[in-house]
């Protein structure tokens, strides 16, 4: 039996030399578990994330917007599929992962526990929520696990398109009527802080960061990514003519970054623990879709079995 220490050393050497880890390679059990947790969380986020945007499909203000929104949400479902497949390469089943989501064992991004109240929210989700997600996902294209990294390359292309589309929705509002401008500012007020929370707890409180950095699952810390996000948003907000809801947001010459206020961590932890405005609705909707779909899945299975049996009988007859 190979010595565990030498296997681990070899594994770390690959990581250090930027060689991707592939499904059949030896990996520490904790690396596998960390990836399963992270990739499945990511997949669940894509699928739960369909709900707040889905709210506005039937109310989209024009046919062009309706088509774009449908296509965007469909992309998210597709991302969910790639990610579940990437997770399956680590020896888990999609059904078990979904079960973990429905029982509350697995998490998904807390941002989707916030409601989409006006059409401008669809733009704000594109600009801020997809924008924050991209910061994270661009980093993950270089993650050490091969299937996850490759899924991310594909996802990033579509996500940056979504972000531009969201920004364009807001730009249109910014050039519109007083009502439209009011809608725009209101959406930014509500989505700004939850978007900053998407990067997770502050580095000093993040239990997973250090190990994930060593294994190059993550390449930047939560706070680094959050800062990068704030820095790019400021100019974009200026073009939209909106105020970002933080009185302490200002350029710091010395740091070469924008300073911003401390996040309301009580709110953050509360939403993570299930007390956000829509946690219950989101989970109820997912569970309902799953439960109401059970007879469909069973029928598809039963039919496939019948067909296989029929084919077998035919072959026997011919023989």
């Amino acid at each position, binding site marked *: 039996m190979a010595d565990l220490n030498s296997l681990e050393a070899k594994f770390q050497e690959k990581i250090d030399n930027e060689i991707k880890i592939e499904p059949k390679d030896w990996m520490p059990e904790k690396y596998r578990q960390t990836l399963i947790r992270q990739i499945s969380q990511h997949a669940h986020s894509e*699928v739960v994330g*369909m*709900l707040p945007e*889905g709210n506005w*499909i*039937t*109310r*989209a*203000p*024009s*046919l*062009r*917007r*309706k*088509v774009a929104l*449908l*296509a965007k*949400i*469909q992309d998210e*479902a*597709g991302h*969910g*599929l790639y990610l*579940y497949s990437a997770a399956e390469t680590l020896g888990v089943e999609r059904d078990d992962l979904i079960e973990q989501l429905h029982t509350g064992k697995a998490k998904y991004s807390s941002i989707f526990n916030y409601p989409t109240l006006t*059409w401008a929210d669809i733009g704000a989700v594109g600009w801020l929520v997809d924008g924050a997600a991209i910061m994270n996902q661009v980093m993950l294209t270089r993650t050490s696990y091969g299937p996850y990294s490759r899924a991310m390359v594909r996802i990033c292309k579509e996500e940056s398109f979504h972000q531009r589309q969201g920004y364009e*929705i807001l730009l*249109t509002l910014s*050039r*519109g*009527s007083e*009502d*439209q401008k009011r809608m725009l500012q209101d959406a930014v007020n509500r989505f700004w802080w939850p978007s900053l929370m998407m990067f997770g707890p502050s580095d000093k409180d993040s239990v997973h960061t250090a190990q994930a950095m060593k294994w190059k699952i993550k390449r930047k810390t939560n706070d680094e990514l959050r800062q990068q996000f704030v820095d790019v948003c400021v100019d974009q907000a200026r073009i939209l003519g909106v105020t970002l809801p933080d009185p302490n947001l200002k350029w710091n010459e010395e740091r070469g970054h924008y300073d911003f206020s401390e996040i309301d961590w009580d709110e953050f932890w509360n939403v993570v623990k299930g007390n956000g405005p829509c946690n219950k609705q989101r989970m109820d*909707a997912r569970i*309902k*879709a*799953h439960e*109401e*779909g*059970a*007879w*469909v*899945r*069973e*029928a*598809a299975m*039963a*039919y496939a079995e*019948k067909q296989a049996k029929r084919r077998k009988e035919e072959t026997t007859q011919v023989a």
Partner: protein
Amino acid sequence: MKNSLLNYTIHLADNAHILGHRLGEWCGHGPILEQDIAMTNISLDLIGQARSLYQYAAEIEGRGRTEDDIAYLRDAWDFRNVLLVEQPNGDFGKTMVRQFLFDAYNFLFYKELKNSNDQQLAAIAEKSLKEVTYHQRFSSEWVIRLGDGTEVSHEKVQNALNDLWMYTGELFVMNDFEKDMTNNGTGVDLEKLKPLWQEKVDYILKTATLAKPQNDWMQSGGKTGRHSEHLGFILAEMQFMQKTYPGQVW
């Protein structure tokens, strides 16, 4: 004649738009992620078809209206879609039965419309036919799978079929604008499609072990603007933004 062409085009656009809207209601709530994606795909195709047709209708009308003006600023009585497409989704089985009954018609319809002497409609038909071919395959496969699946699924789709059957007659009832368009070589003779549709439906139902409903009372009215109660609610939701904030650019 121009009026008949306009109504004809709007009728086709409304069919595609309302059915696409209904399928869009499923997005994020499908029984299986793959099926969620497929239904959204069909919804996208249909709304895409509706857009081409509304744009053409606006051109025929020549009053400077846009696709959105036509889609969002009419009340139910001016909608010309068949009753079948506005029926509520129900469960996945009912959605698939509604889809199949319509797809089987739509496929035959576009196959004929491709030969229309109106070049614009012929071009839209040609493009749509490719999409509708896939829709028909998808919905017939699901009707078969669910019909010949489990006892539960069989009963559910049989009930859905029984409920929706009365909306299929209208597909083949020609009203004035359709007769005009058929007479001048632009439109499709629905009488000719009927036996082909019946043949297709009989075959799929038989394969799915489903019984063809015996009731022959057929509801109609959609094409002339007399709709079921459902359409008003669809429009209330669909047109909310355009009506609350009139005249804005989105």
